[in-house]
């Protein structure tokens, strides 16, 4: 009977029971043999499948880094594409182990959803995209415009705040998925498409004539995007948090996917600590001593990940800006590994 009750509870209570009972996410992942990673339904640069079905993007690479640290194999991942409004339920119910889906860190999400943000993978801000033919040069000229937006996002609320604060009227048309939103914008249902600025550049590539559209200069919000894990499993929280820090630290120390083996042989005390020949930090996380080596070999350091997916080496060609290292004028900063 207990089993029947459990099954019913699972079904009826949105599957909140089974996962909540055991907080051993690392053990669950190891037993299962794959990491379950919640990603977007297709946002170039962050998480989107290529023509062969391989997922790429910054958010995807974070999951690959976690999988590499656990299994020494960045392919042992099951990607679960989630819409903006389904993402938190999927994390709460245990359908995904980590939600790495361009999600903005806000206090309400951090406190009321039963989940925690582990860090910031990308510092973003909300912007607007319009057709060049409208001859608009500033977001302040958008009075009475129709705006397409994806539902269940901070974007939707920032939009309401911005137009209210500037005493402008607008019409909002909200869609459940990013693709529907872009399609409606392209069909002319609205004058303006709004989302995080990185997303605007990414989505512009999907349009038939990207050059007919422009991103307005205004950035109207702070959108720190980061991965989330469930409450109640501090070890797992630490693993996800330090995987990101490992990527940033590697860039800071000049460790790349190409030179990681040579760097590991050097007699530099900091390199020895980070790369595992000195101390047992990886084991304290529940991983192995060479966890950083595994991560960097799989995905490269943070700079490599950025360049490959959204930076100079990608069609998006976004500047590092806020996402540069702290000692190069940006905000990316990792606590020391010692």
């Amino acid at each position, binding site marked *: 009977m207990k089993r029947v*009750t459990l099954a019913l509870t699972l079904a009826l209570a949105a599957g*909140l*029971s089974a996962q909540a009972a055991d907080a051993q996410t690392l053990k669950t992942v190891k037993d299962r043999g794959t990491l379950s990673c919640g990603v977007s339904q297709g946002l170039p640069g962050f998480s989107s499948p290529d023509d062969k079905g391989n997922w790429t993007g910054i958010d995807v690479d974070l999951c690959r880094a976690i999988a590499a640290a656990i299994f020494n194999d960045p392919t042992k991942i099951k990607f679960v594409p989630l819409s903006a409004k389904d993402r938190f*339920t999927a994390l709460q119910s245990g359908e995904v182990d980590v939600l790495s889906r361009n999600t903005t860190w806000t206090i309400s999400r951090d406190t009321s959803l039963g989940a925690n943000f582990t860090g910031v993978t990308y510092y973003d801000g909300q912007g607007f995209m319009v057709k060049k033919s409208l001859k608009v040069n500033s977001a302040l000229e958008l009075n009475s415009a129709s705006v397409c937006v994806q539902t*269940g*996002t901070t974007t939707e609320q920032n939009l*309401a705040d911005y137009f209210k604060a500037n005493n402008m009227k*607008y019409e909002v*048309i909200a869609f459940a998925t990013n693709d529907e939103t872009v399609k409606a914008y392209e069909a002319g249902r609205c004058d303006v498409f709004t989302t995080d600025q990185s997303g605007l550049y990414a989505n512009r590539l999907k349009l038939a004539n990207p050059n007919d559209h422009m991103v307005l200069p205004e950035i109207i919000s702070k959108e720190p995007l980061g991965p989330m894990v469930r409450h*109640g499993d501090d070890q797992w929280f630490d693993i996800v948090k330090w995987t990101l820090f490992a990527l940033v630290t590697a860039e800071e120390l000049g460790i790349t996917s190409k030179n990681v083996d040579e760097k590991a042989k050097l007699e530099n005390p900091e390199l020895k600590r980070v790369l595992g020949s000195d101390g047992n930090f990886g084991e304290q996380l529940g991983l192995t001593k060479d966890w950083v080596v595994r991560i960097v070999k799989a995905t490269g350091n943070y700079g490599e990940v950025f360049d490959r997916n959204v930076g100079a080496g990608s069609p998006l060609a976004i500047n590092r800006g806020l996402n540069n290292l702290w000692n190069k004028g940006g905000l990316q900063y990792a606590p020391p590994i010692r």
Partner: protein
Amino acid sequence: MSTEARKPPPQIALKIRRALGGKSGWNGIVVQFAFAAILGWIGYEIVSNTRANLENQHIAAGFGFLRNNAGFDVNQTLISYTGSDTFLRVFVVGLLNTLVVSVVGIFFATVIGFIVALCRLSPNWLLSRVGEIYVEIIRNLPLLFQILFWYLAVLAALPNPRQSISLLGIAFISNRGLVIPRPIGESGFEPFLAMLVLGIVVSLGLRFYARRALFERGQVIRIWPSVLALLFGLPLATMLVFGLPFTFELPQLKGFNFAGGSRIIPEFVALTVALSTYTAAFIAEIVRAGILSVHKGQMEAGSSLGLSRGATLRLIVVPQAMRVIVPPLTNQYLNLTKNSSLAVAIGYPDLVSVFAGTSLSQTGQAIEIIAMTMGIYLLISLVTSAVMSVYGWRVSRSLGA
């Protein structure tokens, strides 16, 4: 030696036994209670388990969030709504949007369904083929696909607001929707409205009186001239006394969009068209089956009385067919209402979209919001069923069945 008269067994106990235990008697009652207890226990386990887990994970619970500010906007609101209203208000806004699309959809689905059914039954070869093709195409394509088709087809075909199609310079069609002049009440509005209502009430009373006279005394009373006078003459007369009841605010192109006037958004049009044409295909089949279920002798009897085909259908066949039509028709009405939740695909702000979608992801309170949404859909469906049952009962009663 006298024999005592046999007492009848205690009636109340017998009734309880029969009501609860059925044929199995007292054993049956034990089973019933055991079953109820198990159900209750399962329900209790589910609720308490969920509560415990929510608490363990520190997920906020309860309905307190309904008083929080929503902070997002909705593009079609039947009641006033701004981003600084509460989630409860969002719930009502979404519910009204669902209801309006359902009611309008049901109306058009019924009208189109009856017309298509009559086409299919028509002796005219072309008409009946057209009806058949309509039914076979529409009911065999997925509804979501049809909604997207209407939405994207409507959008693609329409120009942007600056090149909008003008209808006599007062209404405009563009890919932002249909903008029409909005009536604004003037001083003469209230008397006008009062007279209109009075006219409708008195007309209905007259109709009731005329029908009574027809059925009870066989007396035919001509009421349409007085109805015409009541419905048009009376309000016109008040207009002459009190002045114009309302003036129209004309829409004008201003910046990106039209300012002023009322607007019907394309999402609403696409959803209504898709829902009503789709459901109409099913209603047409139900109506056809209902009409065919009436013996063809009834039709012949009508003809032999000298009634036209239309009059026979209207006065003799359809009233009898309604008994068969109403129950499955109710199902279609319920389907249409529930299918309106597909609105989320084209950005029409119905209950599922703004409440079970946006509000859910803004607050993260899945269990409360889904429970409320399920509850309200259940309520809408039960009310619809109840209304249709009463109607069905009246139809049967009026036929003396």
